């Protein structure tokens, strides 16, 4: 039966769709590969947009609603492109009691955005994490994939200034 379904065509010529296709093939074009495929898309493109969700849903033969449902259920997936830089503040218990809320307050005030948002100039995205597992170094902040430990309010402000004035 499967042979009647034509293989969907990627939304555009972007080479990164080849990576996505490889994951889809590895998962046997089965619905069970949905999360793995979305991971690949997000890794390749940075976020999941509508055309990506449509393409993945068609390729795995799942309803678009299910692909959208999964993409919005899990925090790790994002439907919006991130800014040039990302600042993730860990809000795990250890970080929380060692002053993460104060860090978050300061950053929110400096950037004028809330967690999950990006500054209007698309320079910085602010995110919070449930726990990075760097509790020994609380409070922890991730600047563009680099984990920094024992961060003070002054240090995080200083770091962000470098990004916003660059």
């Amino acid at each position, binding site marked *: 039966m499967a042979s009647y379904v034509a293989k969907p065509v990627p939304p555009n010529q972007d080479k990164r769709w080849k990576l996505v296709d490889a994951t889809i093939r590895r998962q046997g074009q*089965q*619905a*069970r*590969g*949905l*999360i*793995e495929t*979305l*991971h690949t898309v997000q890794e390749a493109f940075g976020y999941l947009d509508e055309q990506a969700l449509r393409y993945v849903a068609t390729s795995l033969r799942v309803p678009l609603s*299910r692909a959208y*449902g*999964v993409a919005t*259920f*899990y*925090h*790790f*997936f994002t439907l919006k492109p991130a800014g040039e830089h990302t600042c993730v503040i860990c*809000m*795990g*218990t*250890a970080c*929380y*009691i*060692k002053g993460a809320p104060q860090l978050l307050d300061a950053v929110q005030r400096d950037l004028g955005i809330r967690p999950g948002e990006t500054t209007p100039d698309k320079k910085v995205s602010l995110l919070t*994490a*449930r*726990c*990075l*597992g*760097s*509790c*020994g*170094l*609380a409070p*922890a902040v991730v600047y563009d994939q*680099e*984990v*920094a*430990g024992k961060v003070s309010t002054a240090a995080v402000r200083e770091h962000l200034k470098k990004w916003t004035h660059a």
Partner: protein
Amino acid sequence: MTPDELEQIAESEHAEQGKFTQRVNVCVAAGCLSCQSQSLKDSLEQEVSRRGTGDHCQIKGTGCMGLCSEGPLVSTSAGVLYKGATAADSSAILDSLEGAPVERLVCPTDVPFFQRQKKIVLENSGVIDPERVEDYIGAGGYTALIKALTEMSPREVIDEVTRSGLRGRGGAGYPTGLKWSTVAKSVGTQKYVICNADEGDPGAFMDRSVLESDPHRVLEGMLIAGYAVGAAEAYIYVRAEYPLAIKRLRNAIRQAERIGLLGSNICGTRFSFRIDLRLGAGAFVCGEETALIASVEGKRGTPRPRPPYPAMEGLFGEPTLINNVETYANVAPIIRNGGDWYAQIGTEKSKGTKVFALAGRVENTGLVEVPMGISLREMVFEIGGGIPGGRKFKAVQTGGPSGGCLPSDCLDMPVDYESLAKAGSIMGSGGMIVMDESSCMVDVARYFMDFCMTESCGKCIPCRVGTYQMHRILSSVAAMTATPEDLKVLAELCDLLKHTSLCGLGQSAPNPVLSTLRSFGEEYRAHVEDHKCPAGVCTEQPVGEPA
């Protein structure tokens, strides 16, 4: 791979390692990496090649050495542990291999933090290179698998695990041997083994550390489990937030496949086994086993009612064994040394050791492995080194959002499954967060309720609506606008969620509230009646709707 071949690998590894008379181990687990341990290791390597001592001096990247707060940690063949070393210190560290230690960097190891530990799960952490299977084999790795495959029947393996008294390290403490024998007895065309590495509790990083420091130990445990229950396929469900753990697991699986410890007809037996990774995507509820299974199947991670338990109907409707990382990490030593050996350690009902992630307002933060039954006082004041800044101890929080806060009169309680449950908390996966008088317990309860509210999957109403309502009341208590009537409703909601929620997330969500209400009721009353926060954390303000 035959037993002889394994021995050969071990011997050639010993010969290889024996060439080096000097060794410097640098921790390259995530904690120390974020303190620039990689540049320290690179600089040590450059210095060794500059000196031309590469033939007898080895620089090795290893797993976690425990005291994460003092990173990067370095241990040398001269038996010295250094803390907080930087790339600029590499020359001094290499000089010290033949002379006196570098005083300013020495981290004393004759202190309770190191002396009071008993390492089974972490025996290789900080000793072997997590990216080389040969190093693991050289340290006795995979001998337990060979022993199980060649000398024991699946039944005997399960009996050995049952005799050890090992209980699930994910938090609930279900007897591992019993779970294995249920899956072994279940009938199905295919059985699955799953490793739960979705360490979602905030404040817990034991599993991450084990996966980063000694990934082969987890694979070996899963292989033995697969042999015991009759499964041929396995999945490790690991958090996408742990990129280093994922990288090392992928590498370990490839290595094990290459030398024939994963794949078809392992050790010339009829046993075949494959392990695949599945990345979690940041949903706390996926730590619950039925939700985890849904997620492995590519669906939204929502739990379903049990029974049927996964042991009967799990992944793709087939019998499935699910254990936590630390549980699997305990299996190889049990098979190697026997269940009786393991059962000697710990208390009557809680056997063996437990790895804790000690964090919060305590002098020494990091990873510790202690025998079950140690007292909380020893954990906090001896191993943890007490509270910094001369402040007063207030509570220790175990079990994350499903656990509770234990006040100072619980300090002499032994740490085991039953005692913690009796005191209103749970063992949990091993997060242990110490709080001093600067923490407000209402604020802490609100913090955890915010967590449960956000993480509730929304499938059942008590959890979806109850956590929201409880969070609203706790926010109003913190804003000093609550009435005594609100506290009564709060207690009622606790009872409701506990008894009517579908899964463990909702059932245990009231625990942080209940335990703080019981032990720190006066703080709640101070907020409600006197409009004061004794810890000075909360400020009087009009509350908006919680985000």
